């Protein structure tokens, strides 16, 4: 038993306590990935700022375009900066992200929907004032 206990130690030392060798990509490759991310994010940001002030596109489409650009940029950040990928050791991260996105969407869409409905159904302000008198 003492023998196997001694054997067990090196395994734990290698994996569980989180001793890391540099097992990622080469540094140059990793820098390249960050550079690609920076380039894409800059491009999307510049387009966002440009499109918000332009009269070249149809006005009501601008907010939609801005939201699409923002979501694209968040995706770029997730992939190139946070390194959330579809790799096998990332399944849990992806599941958590999917759940987070679900909650965020429910919260945003639910709030906006309910409040728009309440606004729509609310008595005009002057009538409320008259009733309180």
């Amino acid at each position, binding site marked *: 038993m003492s023998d196997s206990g001694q054997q067990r130690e090196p395994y734990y030392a290698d994996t569980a306590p989180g001793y890391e060798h540099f097992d990622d990509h080469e540094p140059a490759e990793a*820098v390249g990935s960050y550079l690609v991310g920076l380039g894409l994010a800059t491009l999307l940001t510049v387009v966002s700022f440009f499109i*918000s002030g332009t009269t070249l596109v149809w006005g009501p489409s*601008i907010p939609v375009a801005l939201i699409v650009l923002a979501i694209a940029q968040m995706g770029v950040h997730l992939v190139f900066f946070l390194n959330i990928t579809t790799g096998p050791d990332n399944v849990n991260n992806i599941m958590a992200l999917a759940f987070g996105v679900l909650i965020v969407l429910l919260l945003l869409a639910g709030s906006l929907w309910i409040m728009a409905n309440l606004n729509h159904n609310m008595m005009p302000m002057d009538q409320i004032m008259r009733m309180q008198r």
Partner: protein
Amino acid sequence: MSAFEAAAEHGRELPDRRYTPERAASGLVSKRVIVGYGFWIFLLSDIVMFSAFFAAYAVLVDATAGGPSGRELFNLRNVAIETACLLLSSFTCGLASIGARTHRGSWFYGAMAATCILGVAFLFIEVREFASMVTQGAGPTRSAFLSAFFTLVGCHGLHVTAGLLWLLTMMAQVFAKGYRADILRRVLCFGLFWHTLDIIWVAIFTVVYLMGAGR
């Protein structure tokens, strides 16, 4: 009846479920992955909190109570500089994490210092913007719109402040304790935190500033 019992009944060979170090080693994930996962859960809960502030802002954005609207208040040139600062700092933070993993002090300290300077520049511009709004009489007490604005953007600013303190702590810890595994995991978490702040800023500059200025 479990699969285990079924196998026993049919006299098949039982799967070997004894504990062995080899098995334990192959079943365990490295602590870096586990720590990263746990911190990612925290970051997602932080994002959910921000989404509540975003929902409040979106609901209250027209409730200006006769006060100034975003169109009159926002200066997009400042916002562009802030965005550039935060995006570049996200990049240098990535460089710092590579420097930490490869144990290169000059990379790590240089990139962390650059991240710190860019973060401070961002905060400086933001505080100046807030101060000028308050002196114009457009403080958080002016209207529901401004309350929601200061809560949302101010909460992000507080996160950046906390991130800067954490950044300096990490530089000091690496300096004092070296590239130990536990210190490297903290650097990893700091990197995730800083990148997430940039993601939230993307939502802020889009929803609050760009859509507000065009309104």
